[in-house]
């Protein structure tokens, strides 16, 4: 249990560093450290499927952040109205902490979940689906609708990115753009 708290403190420190850094490269690397800590937390909590996915997606996000955005001078607005922003942020933190303390009292204890539906999956998953990886049998057999929705979301995201970022959509009114296939 103690390693979990060490990792949590590490992640919180990494997140604060990522916010406070003026250098973009250091901030991106701090975000990567937070993701790595989260992946190790998943491993400690014995969820290797989620840990693999978290690690791999974190790497891809880091590469995209480094390669696609860092070389461009993106316009940032860092000045103005910091007092109002800080007050609003502090207010929301207080509200969310209050609600969270009230809500977490009713949750079951950590490590002892209420498993009414999941018990059936754990007992009959291997017999009913034939998959020895119980996570796979849940996401692709018992809860396949969720996976269908997730794939639809990803498909829509790919279409949206490719439609917005393509060159012909960003031309001016009278500008002639040759659509070279790069």
């Amino acid at each position, binding site marked *: 249990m103690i390693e979990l708290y060490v990792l949590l403190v590490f992640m919180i420190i990494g997140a604060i560093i990522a916010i406070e850094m003026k250098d973009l490269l250091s901030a991106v690397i701090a975000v990567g450290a937070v993701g790595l800590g989260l992946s190790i937390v998943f491993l400690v909590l014995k969820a290797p499927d989620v840990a693999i996915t978290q690690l791999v997606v974190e790497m891809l996000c880091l590469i995209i952040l480094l390669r*696609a955005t860092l070389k461009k001078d993106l316009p940032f607005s860092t000045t103005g109205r910091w007092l109002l922003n800080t007050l609003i942020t502090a207010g929301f933190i207080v509200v969310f902490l209050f609600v969270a303390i009230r809500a977490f009292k009713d949750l079951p204890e950590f490590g002892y979940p209420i498993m009414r539906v999941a018990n059936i999956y754990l007992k009959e998953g291997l017999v009913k689906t034939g998959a*020895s990886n119980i996570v796979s049998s849940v996401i692709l057999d018992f809860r396949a609708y969720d996976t269908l929705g997730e794939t639809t979301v990803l498909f829509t995201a790919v279409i949206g990115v490719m439609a917005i970022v393509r060159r012909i959509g960003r031309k001016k009114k009278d500008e002639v753009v040759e659509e070279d296939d790069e």
Partner: protein
Amino acid sequence: MSKEHDKGMTLIVKVITRLTVGLILLYGIYIVLHGHISHGGGFAGGVIIALSFVNLMLAYGRDVALKKLPKSAMSFFVSAGALIFLGIALLGFSGGYFFLNFISKGEPFRLFSAGIIPLCNIAISLKVGAGLFAIFVVLVLLKFEWEKKE
């Protein structure tokens, strides 16, 4: 994006990439195909497949990577993955309901078992791999107006 990155990185990176990129791709395919036996699955394996192509593009420049997997092939794989997944789900109506596991379950802990789950994993990996690589390519090749004038 600076100009020198169009042609890729130095010789050391190129040689190491040439040795390892096939292994990365193979590991992604392994994770996809064994998704119903051990940890992993279609999404994680697909992202690893995308990462192998990203590695190729970072090391060798965009021309080599886009020759291995052109944009038309990416569009084909993304659409094919989505349609195969939906088709498998619709084929369940032959036996009764949506997402029915209509292939025989087989023996557990074997590669050919669990009915439609490996097929769904393959479809998802095609879609995720090609789709995330397409997003990466599009975001990297994006140029703003003020960059072209330089």
